[in-house]
């Protein structure tokens, strides 16, 4: 019986190893490739060249602020909206979810033009700079944002908490900030991570709009130099990893604050 159990316990490990290899092998191979030099030697030559290409820091900076702008605008728009749907128009949930899925089926070019048309009379600062991308990405990320927040709000007794807070004297903004937000923090964090990853890797929209973002720079640089192109994709992966890691550290610290004691028997 114990062998059987041991055999059963082996399966998760095997699955984990296979999945790990599936993700890690390409990365290791890429790393190896990016380190190749002439005559079967290895060196950091490609990585060195990468850093010497102009535009790395500029585009990275652009993408970062677009990413954080997208996260901020998304949360600002979507947390109150989804909360409102949950509280006041639960019957509209299906409908709103349907709408939030539209960006998945609408071709990017249509999306781009739609946003451009809406903002055509906006000042140059909006539609002439990467700021326009923030608006595009908020829409692009909508399906993920909506579903994540929806799941988070469904997991808490929202109506009761909100009414309790209202009764204790909380205005609507205070309810959102002090009651709703802290109790769906995991979902908010998830939505933020998805937005971030999306923006840091999105190429199509920004290239159509002729914006010099990090992914656009990556593609154009990679075209000229195979070694550099691989190094650059590893770099972008690394950057996203670091960002996600930083965000989860922030949330991890808060989570520990939240549950400092073990449940009691009483």
């Amino acid at each position, binding site marked *: 019986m114990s062998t059987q159990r041991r055999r059963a316990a082996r399966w998760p490990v095997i699955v984990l190893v296979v999945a790990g290899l599936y993700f890690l092998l390409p990365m290791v191979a890429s790393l190896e490739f990016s380190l190749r030099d002439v005559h079967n030697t290895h060196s950091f030559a490609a990585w060195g060249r990468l850093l010497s290409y102009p535009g790395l820091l500029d585009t990275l900076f652009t993408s970062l602020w677009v990413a954080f702008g997208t996260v901020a605008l998304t949360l600002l728009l979507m947390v109150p909206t989804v909360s409102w749907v949950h509280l006041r128009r639960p019957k509209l949930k299906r409908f709103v979810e349907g709408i939030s899925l539209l960006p998945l089926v609408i071709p990017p070019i249509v999306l781009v033009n739609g946003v451009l048309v809406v903002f055509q009379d906006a000042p140059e600062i909006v539609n002439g700079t990467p700021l326009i991308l923030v608006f595009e990405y908020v829409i692009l990320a909508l399906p993920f944002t909506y579903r994540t927040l929806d799941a988070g709000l469904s997991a808490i007794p929202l109506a009761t908490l909100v009414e*309790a*807070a209202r*009764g204790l*004297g909380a205005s609507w903004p*205070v309810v959102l900030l002090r*009651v709703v937000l802290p109790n769906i923090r995991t979902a908010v964090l998830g939505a933020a991570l998805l937005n971030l990853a999306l923006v840091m890797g999105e190429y199509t929209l920004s290239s159509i709009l002729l914006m010099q973002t990090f992914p656009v720079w990556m593609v154009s640089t990679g075209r000229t130099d195979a070694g550099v192109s691989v190094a650059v994709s590893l770099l972008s992966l690394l950057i996203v990893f670091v960002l996600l890691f930083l965000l989860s550290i922030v949330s991890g610290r808060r989570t520990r604050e*939240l549950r400092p004691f073990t449940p009691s028997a009483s």
Partner: protein
Amino acid sequence: MTVTEAAPEAVKRAGTSVEFRGLRRSFGEVAALDGLDLAIAPGELVALLGPSGCGKTTALRVLAGLEQVDAGEVLVDGGDVTGVPANKRDMGMVFQSYSLFPNLAVRDNVAFGLRLRGVAAATRRRRAQELLELVGLDSHGHRYPHQLSGGQQQRVALARALAIEPRVLLLDEPLSALDAQVRTQLRDEIRRLQLRVGITTLFVTHDQEEALSIADRVGVMRSGRLEQCDTPAELYQRPATAFVAEFVGTMNHVPGVVAGQEVVVAGHRLTLAEPAGARDGQLVKVLLRPESVTLTAEADGQALVSDRSFRGAVTRVTATLPDGTTLLADLPSVTAADLQPGAQAAVRFAPQPVLLAEGE
């Protein structure tokens, strides 16, 4: 520190009066409130009692400002608050379901309302501690809601509601999620606290025992209106309508025949409490409390004892009349000794005015 006797000054306050005038509220076809009138005196605890769906919760939520009315007004201390939003009403509310903020420790939950009012941190902490002592949980301030039992969570919710020194305390079936023992214990505790703090309280429940045992007055509701609002004793002994009579306590439905201002039941003439809406000779169902029915063992008695259950001082005897009617009688246990199942018994009724059941 002796907080057990007198309430701390922080939570003591003169009562506030409340008045509902002709409240109406419909949800689609359903009239949840259909002309509700109710006046609550300062410091009074009124329980709203009634069957499921009669509008108790709606009435309470209207007072809290969480629900709008279609017509009528809500007066608090004589002032019209009908249009005032919930966060400006200063009502302390305890909900049926657990409503503590999961992300805040118990003491921060209690201090939440004070924080919104800009009370200084030190004062806030002291007041939260006082209130937790008041509900007997002063050693649990650092815990989180998920680390408390259901009863403890409701105590904290009570402390949180009282912390803001509300004008009125609103309780919507706060005990219904708890098991029987905790329920009665917390019920009595709520009443003690309410008397100590002297706060006007509206307590909603569908449990008549709960309502009768803690309220100064009990308002019985029926389809969005108040049927009767009186002291528990008055309600039980002199119900104004058959609905109230049947809703509060246990009632026998005994067939009788109307004869003028009287009704004949099993050979006895009983006075009607209100003019009968029935013709002479009409067959009706008479409402009789088990304690106003007396059975005595007699070989030629018309009732047949079928069951008995000992309840301490009284014994509830179940008997059947010749026409098949089941009759419950609460008799002093000492006199019920010879009323064993199978025995014949004579039936008599207390000479009190009686009510007739509706629609029969």
